[in-house]
């Protein structure tokens, strides 16, 4: 049995019994194909949330780095996660990316060019989805490292990104806590690289699920390290906590890698020496840390405008 079968069947059920009847009732059946893509995103997104919750919550309770009298600030992060992984955001990004990809690659084909696609450049990869995915991950993680690092270099960009760093109660829910403009830049960045290497949006859903799990786990409030070798193989909660440390906000930060710490090691931004430091951004206004979703978004925008206008 295919390991993706339960997820695909759940997405199919959602499509057949919920989405399609709603689209039909609203006269929107022309969105049916897109909706099928969203159903897959939603199911895999929900599975990401469930898996992360099932693994990270016990870890956070078992060996927490910090204990807080209340966790009100975490509630907003849960909202960020649901919007980012199950809601509209994946639908918009999927539709946009897919449509742009179809137009661009079709245009290239029309003009006698071979659209960029990893499996065309390296035919050996055809029929080896795990290996193909691994190569895609390495390339995308490399590009993510530089996007993330640059977001700490440019002040206007960090003004947006500081929303992510302002959280003093960092938990596994904090991974998706981002300013919408920061997310938009991230999407454009991903799209440019994704188009250049011809990444298929939904060909490896189970593996994407595992990657997103690693990213969530790296934000968990738990004393967990992967050992000397493991820390150099995958980004651990301890490794990523150093990136979120109070003293590491802004340009001084370290450990920018999302999944692989290799780029930090290669470009000398890795720091394996820290213990479990407190997190947050002392330069961020309080609304960025503990405000509502809207308040955080507004505060991030305000900080960016102030940075730009001096």
């Amino acid at each position, binding site marked *: 049995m295919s390991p993706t079968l339960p997820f695909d069947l759940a997405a*199919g059920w959602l499509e057949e019994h919920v989405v399609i009847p709603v689209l*039909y009732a609203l006269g929107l059946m022309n969105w049916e194909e897109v909706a099928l893509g969203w159903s897959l995103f939603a199911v895999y997104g929900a599975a990401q949330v469930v898996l992360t919750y099932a693994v990270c919550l016990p870890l956070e309770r078992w060996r927490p780095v910090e204990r807080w009298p209340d966790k009100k600030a975490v509630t907003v992060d849960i909202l960020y996660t649901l919007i980012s992984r199950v809601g509209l955001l994946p639908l918009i990004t999927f539709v946009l990316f897919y*449509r742009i990809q*179809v*137009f661009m*690659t*079709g245009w*290239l084909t029309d003009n006698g060019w071979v659209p960029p696609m990893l499996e065309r450049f390296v035919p050996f990869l055809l029929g080896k989805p795990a290996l193909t995915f691994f190569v895609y991950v390495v390339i995308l993680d490399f590009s993510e490292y530089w996007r993330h690092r640059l977001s700490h270099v440019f002040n206007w960009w960090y003004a947006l990104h500081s929303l992510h760093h302002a959280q003093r109660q960092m938990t596994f829910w904090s991974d998706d806590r981002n300013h919408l403009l920061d997310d938009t830049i991230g999407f454009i960045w991903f799209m440019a690289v994704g188009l250049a290497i011809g990444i298929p949006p939904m060909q490896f859903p189970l593996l994407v699920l595992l990657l997103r799990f690693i990213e969530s786990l790296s934000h968990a409030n738990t004393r967990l390290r992967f050992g000397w070798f493991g820390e150099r193989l995958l980004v651990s909660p301890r490794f990523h906590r150093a990136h979120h440390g109070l003293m590491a906000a802004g340009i001084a930060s370290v450990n920018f890698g999302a999944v692989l710490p290799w780029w930090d090691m290669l470009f000398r931004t890795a720091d394996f020496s820290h213990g479990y430091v407190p997190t947050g951004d002392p330069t961020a206004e309080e609304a960025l840390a503990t405000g509502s979703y809207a308040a955080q978004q507004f505060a991030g925008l305000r900080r960016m405008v102030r940075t730009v206008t001096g």
Partner: protein
Amino acid sequence: MSFPFRYFPVLTLLVALAVGAAGSPAAHAHGLALVMNSGEASLSIVDMDTHREVRRIPVLREPHHWALTPDRRGLLVGDTAGNVLFDLDPTTFALRRQVSVADPYQLGFSPDGKFLTVNGNGRNQVDIYDGATLKLVKRFPLARTPSHLDYAPDGSHVYVSLQDTDRLVSIDLRTLTVQWDEKVGRVPAGVLWLNGRVLVALMNDEGFAVVDPATGHVERRVHTAAGAHQLFLSPDRKILWVNNRVAGTTVALDAATLAEIRSYRVSGGPDDIAFAPDGKLWITQRFVRTVAVLDPATGQIETIEVGRQPHGIFLNPNADAATLSASN
């Protein structure tokens, strides 16, 4: 005295099914089925005898539909996001060649083999290729989302549904111009020429429209069930089969009178149909990763697990698992 005539379509179907069943003593038809898994960049080869997937062939991105070349030596499978037509041997499914084509979604050769029409669903274009050389003859930018197509029997016209704008367009292949472009109903999908009329399945309605091929005027609508998506004519041209995506049914109609004969429950997003020599229908189920093998005589369904979002399906009763190419 209308009583006997009222049941004529039912009797026709039952007789046809009985003849079909008598002619096929084996439990299953022999041969191989090729299923296009649009959601995971692969083709499933299924043994029609054992109902088991025997091999999965990787493609680039999104295989949706197929067309047999006029000489029947090539099976073209369109990979939309991969921008390529895979030309396969229809018996061994070995790759013969790849042809770069922008966004090949639905495709089909004209009855005279002169043209290949390719609908670029994502790029809002209908491309007419030379049927022999596969060189682009003319592109028609058509808004929006060209979906399905069929030809007039003399190959003079091709009819294409434009899903997002509720229209059906007629392209005159003799002059390579648009003859008409008319609204036909909500979210048109499957297109079929039948008895001098063009039938168009309506996804946001409960059946299909019967269209005058000369003017594009909708003469009448025929009820099947909610979300009519695809239309297929049985090999003996007596039964019209309609898959209804929302209702989750496959409906058999008398091809001459368009009267409903029987409705079958086929859940999981029924999409394309292929007809096996034993009279059974092989129906792709987009949402549940399976192909349903429907026995119209009994209404029984067997399902076969394939890849994600199976869409197009091609059957070759003369193919055999033992003759599969070692290279695919």
